[in-house]
């Protein structure tokens, strides 16, 4: 007889979430760290193990479910949002996690991602952004920078990239965050915040592909650059960064600018103060456009709006309301209808 194991009672731990299969990513791939972070996060969420479902599309990143000892569904390229929606609507009690890549989620699956986000089911979306097509061996992706030289763009790509967070905000996402495969603690914190949010949580994870796009995020998250080029968002705190923590972000008219504290009379009170709960999209939009090299890149929760109903609960509510209004459906009455006649 098998028994329920939950975070609280029987203390699940990381090992419980390690699947027996060999992990087959390239040695050094950033995906390992993300897997590790998720396996550390899940036992701490207070969710029984059998209630987790991990759904993915296709790509290196999308192999993820095979390595998690939970229910999992490795689907088809770009379509994971649809399967995740189906799972969540069908059984709202499940904790649904969706893994996708920059190509999977924003190229072939862009449309589905838009609709997932606007419907707002309580699904946690992890977008592994390595700015490259890993599984198909290194073509540029929709998040690759202009001029990216790859096998399919030998003289550089010409198309303008999509900004994943801006895409999510444009779809009116109720939870938008960014983290990095280089920062275990930050990943775990971010995943927990995503889980706590009721509604679709969208998380962009800077992920390194050692083989086809090595060090793509190094200028932002690397040991040397991190303190100057990363900005960690803290609720209610001013946007401060730098090794000396003496720089900050101020708005001048509509435009953000980097200022140095105690230079030219600038003080903390001049800086933007982080507020992830404001319903005005201007602020998270401004944050999501702070980019390397002009600005430090923000990490953390950009936006979390409570109060918008989740899709699955709206669906359930309509079912319940119909039942209470019309009574539990009577099949024989339905079949007979109101215009039947009797033949003797």
């Amino acid at each position: 007889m098998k028994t329920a194991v939950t975070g609280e009672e029987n203390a699940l731990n990381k090992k419980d979430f390690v699947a027996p299969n060999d992990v087959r990513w390239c040695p050094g791939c950033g995906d390992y760290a993300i897997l590790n972070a998720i396996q550390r996060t899940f036992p701490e969420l207070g969710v029984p193990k059998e209630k987790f479902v991990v759904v993915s599309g296709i790509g290196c990143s999308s192999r993820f479910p095979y390595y998690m000892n939970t229910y999992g569904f490795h689907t088809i390229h770009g379509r994971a949002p649809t399967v995740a929606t189906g799972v969540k609507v069908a059984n709202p009690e499940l904790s649904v996690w969706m893994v996708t890549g920059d190509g999977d989620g924003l190229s072939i699956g862009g449309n589905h991602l838009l609709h997932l986000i606007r419907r707002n089911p309580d699904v946690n979306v992890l977008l592994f952004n390595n700015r490259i097509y890993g599984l198909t061996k290194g073509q540029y992706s929709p998040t690759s920078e202009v001029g990216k030289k790859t096998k399919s763009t030998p003289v550089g790509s010409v198309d303008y990239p999509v900004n994943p967070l801006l895409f999510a905000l444009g779809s009116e996402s109720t939870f938008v965050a960014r983290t990095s495969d280089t920062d275990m603690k930050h990943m775990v914190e971010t995943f927990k915040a995503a889980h706590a949010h009721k509604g679709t949580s969208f998380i962009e994870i800077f992920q390194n592909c050692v083989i086809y796009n090595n060090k793509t995020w190094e200028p932002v998250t690397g040991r040397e650059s991190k303190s100057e080029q990363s900005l960690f968002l803290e609720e209610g705190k001013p946007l401060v960064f730098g090794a000396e923590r003496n720089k900050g972000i101020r708005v001048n008219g509509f435009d953000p600018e980097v200022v140095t504290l105690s230079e030219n009379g600038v003080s903390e009170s001049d800086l933007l103060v982080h507020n992830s709960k404001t319903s005005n999209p201007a602020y998270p939009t401004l944050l999501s456009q702070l980019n390397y090299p002009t600005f430090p890149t923000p990490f953390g929760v950009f936006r979390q709006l409570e109060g918008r109903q989740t899709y699955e609960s709206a669906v359930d509510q309509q079912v319940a309301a119909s039942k209470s209004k019309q009574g539990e459906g009577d099949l024989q009455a339905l079949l007979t209808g109101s215009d039947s006649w009797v033949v003797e």
Partner: protein
Amino acid sequence: MAQAKDSFIEIESAVVRFAGDSGDGMQTVGERFTDSSAFAGNDIATLPDFPAEIRAPAGTLAGVSGFQVQFGSREILTPGDAPDALVAMNPAALKSNLPDLPAGGMLVVNTAAFKKMNLAKADYETNPLEDEDLRKKYHLVEIDFTNMTKEALAESPLKPTDKARCKNFFALGFMYYVYGRPLDTTLKFFQDKWGKRLPDLAEANTLALKAGFNLGDTMESARNRYQIAKAPVDAGVYRKISGNEALVYGLVAASKQAKLELLYAGYPITPASPILEGLSALKHFGVKTIQAEDEIAAMGMALGASFTGKLSVCATSGPGMCLKSEFIGLASITELPLIICNIQRGGPSTGLPTKNEQSDLLQSMFSRNGDSPIPIIAAHSSSDCFDCAIEAARIAITYKTPVILLSDLYIANGAEPWLIPNVSDLPDLEVPFADPNEDYVVYKRDPSTLARDQAIPGQIGLEHRIGGLEKNEEGGVSYDPNNHEEMTRLRGDKVNAIADSLPPSKVFGDVEGGDLLVLGWGGTYGAITSAVRNLRTEGFPVSSLHLRNLNPFPHDLCNILSKFKKVLIPELNMGQLSLLIRSKYLIDVVSYSKVQGQPFKVAELSNKILETIR
């Protein structure tokens, strides 16, 4: 034989066609005429025929909408080859429908519409009503429906334009007089539809209908009245049902019989949208519906729900089926139950979106990468959609497989009387999920059905992963060459095993064989059966067999085919079943194709059958 009885001429069956502009309400009057005839105890079959544009420019040929109904005192299997009476509400309707009216047929026209501008819109240079030949050839009845309706509604508070719009019911009233139809069901319809909300409109339509009926009484030219006796049918409670309605009810019934919640995901497309709309109104049955962003998404949502153990369904038409292909492959390899309904229409591409065809059989069979056989069943009539929904659910749940259920525009929109089943007689479809007290092996199979064991999320200890990569029996990803061949074989064998569960095939005619077997599938059932029945009455040694299961074929099919000297396969496509039968049984069948967006006529089939046995 026609014979006078009181003022009525007794006939066996009749075909009436209402034709007018798409804004003239022809579908509505056609439906009402059908209800009234069904209520009068006749057997019926209908053929709505409307343009692809919702409101093509008024009065043009492109905007003509028609509704044909055949009703009779014997079994009616088709809406009829040609109308006995045609009601044409404007010149465009006359122009596009007159070629179908046989000489001597009754032609009722709304004279008010035969004005210069309308004539020009229908490309008439002169007024056809002034043509002596028209009068000679047909039994022409000229009525100014527009003005007579206005007169009848003189006292009504409706605006003049709204009064004019009641003319369709005036025309209907007149046809009720000609065919001795009761008004009751239509009067009730007015009350149900408008009685509370728009009582003036209900009253105006009531007046128009009655005025049309009374006009018949006073008109010289309408002296001939026809009477059709009740059809001899089994005792029971009946209703009129369209294919899409039957499908909706069948799916709800299947979910109840399987004790599984129903989740339906769809994207609007003609002629499948009424299924999404119909199920969305049945939330009190616990039905969850999702209008997805496209057909790919609909399929993904249904598959996700299937993974969690729901009865999952999507419905679409040809273009949507194209989009679903990759997901159907995933459903095949993950062996999850799912029902995919394809309400076929004319293709390829957007093709003839509001016309009929049965040309997606080969798509259903083959349009996936890899060897990925899928069971396919096809409904043969509107009411058969109910039984097919239950059969599709049985196959999906029992064999853990996606099932394609083929219907078509003609049976989806057409209607017929349906002997309402007793819910207590419906089959039990329950299949247990994996037992949490046993070790779970993802692809462990039931030895008789070869179906895999399905465990659903939320069950303790049965955590597992599925996906599009080939797996071994334990559910691990496997690139092993022999494993892939073994799994491919097993998936195929499983689909073939469905044939073990099928009842014996029923040949209509000479069970022991004979000169010719007409083999059909899908919506051609009525026309084929009518043609074969008529020819058998005349003494020709012809028989027919109609297939519901197109993959796998029933076990006894090979034997049946071999008993006949010739096999004729009429299809509303370029010979798709013929290709399957030839390749599977090495029998050189005679293929008879028609792709005009219209059903077979009984006469066409009879001629072809005679030509084949000659």
